[in-house]
């Protein structure tokens, strides 16, 4: 038995929510598409995260897809929802799952380095070197490099890597995607599309870094967050933009 509404019904619900603010329509869309979110979450189970947690994350991705969906694109909602949900799960792994794999000492050192980078940057009025960080932390330089890398290398790589031997990840990434669709849209428009997919703070960081030319330190000071956090947010934003641009290609193909 399928609980999914057909495309016409789904569009009506989306229109009711987006144009008239009908929250019950939004609830119906969430309910109807939860099996999709669960199915995607199940594909990522067994990677160190509880299935229940992944379902929660997938559900957040689904809600984001409902909130961001643009009816004018004229595409089937699921075409938009699948990569948005996958993107949310990938971000979850990137932001959270490293703690599962990284040794505690590196995790603690990484947290210490985050503070030290901030303190030393203020004290030295420039970005500290690895040697300076190592001295301040009382560890070897190699450990500093390793700890800095540990916060982003582990899970992000395994998820970004091209799938081998037909893994589930690859199928998920390509589900509903027709890659030949890209030629019709200009880069600039797509870049704008990518920016639109970002949350306000991420968009501001990308604009400050790549349009206004501010350094990470300057952005950190402007927003009152740590330099390492700025670094993470930049990477996450660029990944989100890539995903959104891929999705734009899907939309173009279906028009």
């Amino acid at each position, binding site marked *: 038995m399928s609980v999914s509404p057909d495309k016409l019904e789904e569009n009506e619900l989306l229109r009711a929510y987006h144009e008239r603010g009908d929250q019950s329509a939004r609830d119906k869309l969430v309910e109807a598409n939860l099996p999709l979110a669960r199915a995607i979450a199940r594909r990522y189970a067994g990677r160190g995260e509880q299935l229940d947690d992944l379902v929660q994350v997938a559900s957040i991705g689904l809600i984001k897809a409902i909130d961001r969906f643009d009816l004018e694109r004229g595409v089937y909602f699921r075409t938009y929802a699948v990569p948005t949900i996958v993107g949310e799960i990938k971000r979850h792994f990137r932001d959270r799952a490293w703690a599962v794999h990284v040794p505690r000492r590196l995790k603690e050192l990484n947290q210490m380095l985050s503070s030290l980078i901030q303190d030393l940057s203020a004290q030295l009025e420039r970005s500290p070197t690895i040697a300076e960080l190592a001295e301040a932390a009382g560890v070897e330089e190699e450990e500093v490099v390793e700890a800095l890398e540990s916060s982003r290398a582990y899970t992000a790589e395994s998820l*970004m890597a091209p799938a081998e031997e037909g893994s589930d990840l690859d199928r998920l990434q390509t589900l509903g995607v027709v890659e030949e669709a890209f030629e019709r849209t200009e880069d600039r428009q797509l870049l704008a599309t990518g920016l639109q997919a970002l949350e306000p703070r991420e968009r501001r960081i990308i604009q400050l870094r790549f349009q206004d030319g501010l350094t*990470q330190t300057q952005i950190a000071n402007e927003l009152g967050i740590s330099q390492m956090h700025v670094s993470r947010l930049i990477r996450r934003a660029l990944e989100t933009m890539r995903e959104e*641009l891929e999705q734009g290609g899907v939309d173009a193909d279906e028009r």
Partner: protein
Amino acid sequence: MSESAVGERVALTLPGERRSIGIVRLFVGGLAARLGLGYETMDDLQLALESVLLKAELRPEITLEATIGEDAVSLTVGPLSRDPLQPDAAGPNELDLGHLLSALVARTESTTRDDGCWLRLDVLVPAGSGTRVSQSS
């Protein structure tokens, strides 16, 4: 005690797979430690190379070469199947790599060799912290 690193060349050859990005980042981290680059410079350079490797069509084996000059470090990566800086090579599903790199490194240049395209990224090293290696212990 300080020791000049000018003229040194460090090269790393590794599988042309995106999962090699982690190794490349560690390579840059080690280079930053060796040269006394600031954390932010290191992070920018890592992101630049990461972006190149995510965008480029990689050959089965790629090489990353670091050449240390008086006031700059040059990192050359290749061979790539095509020039990622060429507008006509930029797939519209990708971000504008040239624009991205221009914010992350001082200079970019692509050259064609017999085996494919090689991309060079230059990072300026602030006086007194870059090409002189400080050893405090």
